[in-house]
């Protein structure tokens, strides 16, 4: 398995109860508690592991951007609200073709304006499920692609 952390690539193999890094170093990972891991007898705190690709992990208070090396698939069908808030701007129309990182919506939440970006290029907008000013809940579908 190839995994990219920050800007460095690692080759990871799981062999029994060991993790082999770059065909060389072996790590023995023991889970003590949900957020405590002992790796080669040293204690690490796993504070946060995000979902998505790439995602972030926070270990011992340090942040890591991690991605499993798999091509970002264009199989996404919809855009969901990542957090509850209010749609303050809709920057796309039905029928538009979108590009990666294009701003689709502006969502106001926790006293901040958050821009929701398109994850990949080449999709066409089929339906917009919300109107400007509408309040949305976490996970609510905002937009459907063709």
């Amino acid at each position, binding site marked *: *398995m190839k*995994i990219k*952390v*920050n*800007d*460095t690539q*690692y080759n*990871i193999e*799981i062999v029994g109860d060991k*993790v082999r*890094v*770059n065909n060389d*170093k072996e*790590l023995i*990972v023991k*889970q003590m508690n*949900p*957020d405590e*891991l002992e*790796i080669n007898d040293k204690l*690490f*705190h*796993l*504070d*946060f*592991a*995000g979902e998505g690709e790439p995602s*972030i*992990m*926070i*270990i*011992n*208070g*340090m*942040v*890591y*951007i*991690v991605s*499993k090396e798999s091509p970002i698939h264009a199989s996404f069908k919809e855009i969901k609200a*990542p*957090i*509850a*808030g209010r749609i303050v701007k809709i920057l796309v129309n039905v029928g538009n073709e979108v590009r990666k990182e294009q701003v689709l919506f502006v969502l106001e*939440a*926790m*006293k*901040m304006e*958050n821009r929701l970006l398109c994850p990949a290029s080449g999709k066409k907008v089929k339906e917009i499920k919300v109107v400007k000013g509408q309040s949305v809940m*976490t996970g609510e579908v905002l937009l459907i692609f063709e």
Partner: protein
Amino acid sequence: MLIANRGEIAIRIARTCKKLDLKPFGIYSDADKNSLHIKHCEKAVGIGGFTPSESYLNMNKIIEAANVLGCELIHPGYGFLSENPDFAMLCKKEGLSFIGPSYESMSITGDKARSRKVASRITSIVDGDEISNETMAVDLAEEIGFPVILKAVQGGGGRGLRIIRSFEELKEAFADSKNEAMMSFGSDRIYIEKYIENPRHIEVQVLADDSKIIHLGERECSVQRRHQKLIEETPSPVLSAEMRNSITKTAIAIVKEMKYTNAGTIEFLFKDNKFYFMEVNARIQVEHPITEAVTGVDIVEQQLRIALGDGLMIKQENVKSKGHAIECRINAEHPLSFVPYPGTITNFTVPEVEGIRVDTAIYSGYSIPSFYDSLIAKIISFANTRLKAIEKMKSSLMQFRITGIPSTVPFHISALNDARFISGNYDTSFIEKLRPFSSKDGEIAAALISLLPKRIEFLNKDVKEMTVDPWTISRFDTIDIFNRNYNLNKWVR
């Protein structure tokens, strides 16, 4: 006393109430039924609602709560109604003492165009003025030169600012800016200012009663993202003794000119050894604990004394700053993009380190509501020297566990390790140039991600099934290690 606020500041205010033998009463919204601040109040009433406008911004509901609970005083905290002159006026009408400046003072400080004019009689302000139409905006921009910044007259707190670099951008932004100001602040008045690139942001804490005004020194607040502060420290590493004297004297003169009373903060931009007045914040500030740490003054206590007509109990010559204090604001945010990230905290553990104060309202098992701001904890470190305060903060941050949600902890660790921060040579562009992660232990991250979720059980899924009694878990709030009172006279109403 009714504390018309939520979260850590409500708990902070309740602490001073108890010290002064005042009973703290509270309010909570429907989204805050499990909030820790309720537990720190003798009684609290639900005022319903989820959004701020349905709850903590609803003046009538709050006045009703005060009457139901039989309160005589109202402390508004920060944010929400704290700088709303109409609320101060309403309290007065209802026979409640509002802990803050008068209606008249807040009408000046809340009107940024007007406070600029008043301050300009005392000190330098950045070139600019209020603009009512596009032609005026274009003319003024031509006169003062790009870049300029558009701000809401009734705004503040760094919200809704637009930096403009050309006539085209100005024409495009003018109407949007007016609409946004209307939406956010209920007034479409805007003003234009020359934009000072990468200044430092320095503010002065003042306390004023009817007869005297004192200052408690400055705070350096240049580490910001989107014009919102993340790290503050006092004293500022950049001010010379001469400059400190000048900026604090200016702050006092502005307060005098505005006939302002109670606690307030005069904000300045500082560049090339010159300072320019920016605005007055007519409230207790988020970052007030660093000033408390170096001066030993309980600012909330002084606010109460001033509002009740008992007067300031400190004289300027008795204010003796000692040591250095730093505050890191821990927000429930993605540490790289700073996108707010509400969720459930699975584990929250605060290190008990001497010289570390933590003001917070969260606990293990707490779900952060998405209706309010993302601040979840403030860590304040205090030591004899700046470098020791940095070291103490760094080691506390490493031991600080917030699990289940991402937070700004990694950002703070990187920031405190940055050579620019350590040397004190930084400005408001600090974050743009910060690389907030290291290559250390990259293999650990790679190994762990490969084991998730099969071999390592993590994330919130188990927590939702946990039944958590918020009051029995992690009842730390503000660990007060600075309790160095100036005056041992017990304050009696």
